[in-house]
């Protein structure tokens, strides 16, 4: 029993998680920072792909719409882990082959770049659907009225479509942010040192599995709870001037 308490107990845990060596605290936080960086990059890339994809799906021609449909369906059906592996090896290969056409030597994509590329492509498929749904939810009457009054298209997009669309898109986009922060953990399987990998390294080296996995869990929770608070603020700002959401059920 004593060993059980010592296992979970505070003194050794505090030592192991301490900031400076031999504590692993700094390494874990560095891993968390890596996770956040990749998440930010992938999220941004995903948003860019998503906006393009959504507009393509709503306003594009039939071929474009079908191609985008194939893209979103395929990415949403295949596990991220498999996509990470395929893209991790295929992406570097493809980039190198293209570069070779201009006689540049082979480059090595850094782990961060590969992670951002892969997760960005995955996020792009999900963002396309979220933004598309948001665009479609803008009441068409308002757009018609603006056109009838002769509003130019860019001003229309800026003053009517975008603000109304944002309110509908924010919950979905908030969800996608939470998904991407957790998907960064999958990069641990390809050996990239983000928080989950750093935790498993620390745990394997010190044999204090419970301590480290629990600590990593706490760090992830802080990240997701903090993100949720920020997104609530963003949603309230996006919904300013509109009717508040009903509490549900009538």
């Amino acid at each position: 029993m004593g060993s059980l308490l010592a296992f979970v107990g505070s003194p050794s845990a505090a030592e192991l998680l301490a900031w400076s060596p031999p504590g692993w605290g700094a390494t874990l936080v560095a891993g968390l920072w890596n996770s956040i960086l990749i998440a930010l990059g992938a999220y941004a890339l995903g948003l860019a792909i998503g906006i393009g994809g959504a507009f393509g799906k709503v306003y594009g021609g039939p071929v474009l719409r079908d191609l985008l449909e194939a893209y979103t369906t395929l990415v949403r059906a295949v596990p991220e882990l498999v996509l990470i592996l395929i893209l991790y090896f295929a992406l570097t290969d493809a980039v190198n082959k293209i570069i070779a056409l201009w006689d540049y030597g082979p480059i090595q994509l850094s782990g961060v770049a590969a992670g951002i590329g892969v997760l960005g492509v995955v996020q792009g498929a999900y963002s396309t659907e979220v933004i598309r749904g948001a665009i479609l939810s803008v009441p068409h009457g308002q757009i018609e009225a603006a056109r009838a009054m002769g509003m130019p298209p860019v001003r229309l997009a800026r003053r009517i479509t975008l603000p109304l669309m944002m309110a509908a898109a924010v919950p979905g986009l908030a969800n996608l942010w939470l998904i991407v922060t957790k998907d960064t953990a999958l990069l641990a399987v390809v050996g990239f040192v983000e928080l989950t990998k750093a935790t498993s390294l620390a745990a394997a080296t010190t044999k204090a599995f419970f301590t480290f996995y629990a600590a990593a869990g706490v760090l992830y929770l802080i990240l997701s709870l903090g993100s949720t608070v920020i997104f609530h603020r963003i949603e309230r700002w996006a919904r300013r001037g509109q009717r508040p959401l009903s509490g549900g059920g009538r």
Partner: protein
Amino acid sequence: MKTLAMIAAAAMALGTAALADPVKVGIAAEPYPPFASPDASGNWVGWEVDIINAVCKAAEMDCVVTPVAWEGIIPSLTGGQIDAIMASMSITEERMKVIDFSDKYYNTPTVVVAAKGSGITPTPEGLAGKTIGVQVSTIHEAYAKAHFPDAELKTYQTTDEGFQDLAAGRIDASQADSIAIDAFMATDAGKACCEVVGAVADDPAILGAGVGVGLRKGDEALKEKFNAGIKKIREDGTYDAISKNYFASSIYGG
């Protein structure tokens, strides 16, 4: 021309051109004490890391130690993400079909460790019906598949995870390199749970001829450099000096 410039700029921003000097030496991203394991600051330390630095210095190469997941380390080499593998990878014929090797830099026997008092022997009869753990994609996995057909095989991402499960009692025995097993037996968990039951019968075709530096096929220039480096550190005593910090006797082997 503009697209060309944009692609080039993006390429520079994202990666480093292989035209430059650094040789990316891949090690396994999973701890493998005492050869390579991370310390609390995240730096990789161990006998193998020291040898990598010594060989590179002797061969006048600028090496960058790059951790890569063990299960994807050979595709990373052939795909160009790394230039060499120094991750305790044994020289075997199977692997020689795909990659090339330098001269060996160490050779240690393969040993089985089992729970105390289990009566297991490192033979097909001794392991029949038992569960044995090995690391995935290693000579130990190949050997166990070939020589212990009646044993139940469990494969792990790392040798360490196998030892964890051995200590937890989930498996009956584990086959690995004798040095790795010695490191495990030196821990409290190892001493409490298990004992070494002996070396396995030799099978050079599967177990290989020692550990060498993995290289892409046809990369003769790099192979020459690594061979020269290994030879130099063995001759000028650096190899022995490093080994003294970790082991009681030389692990170069016959």
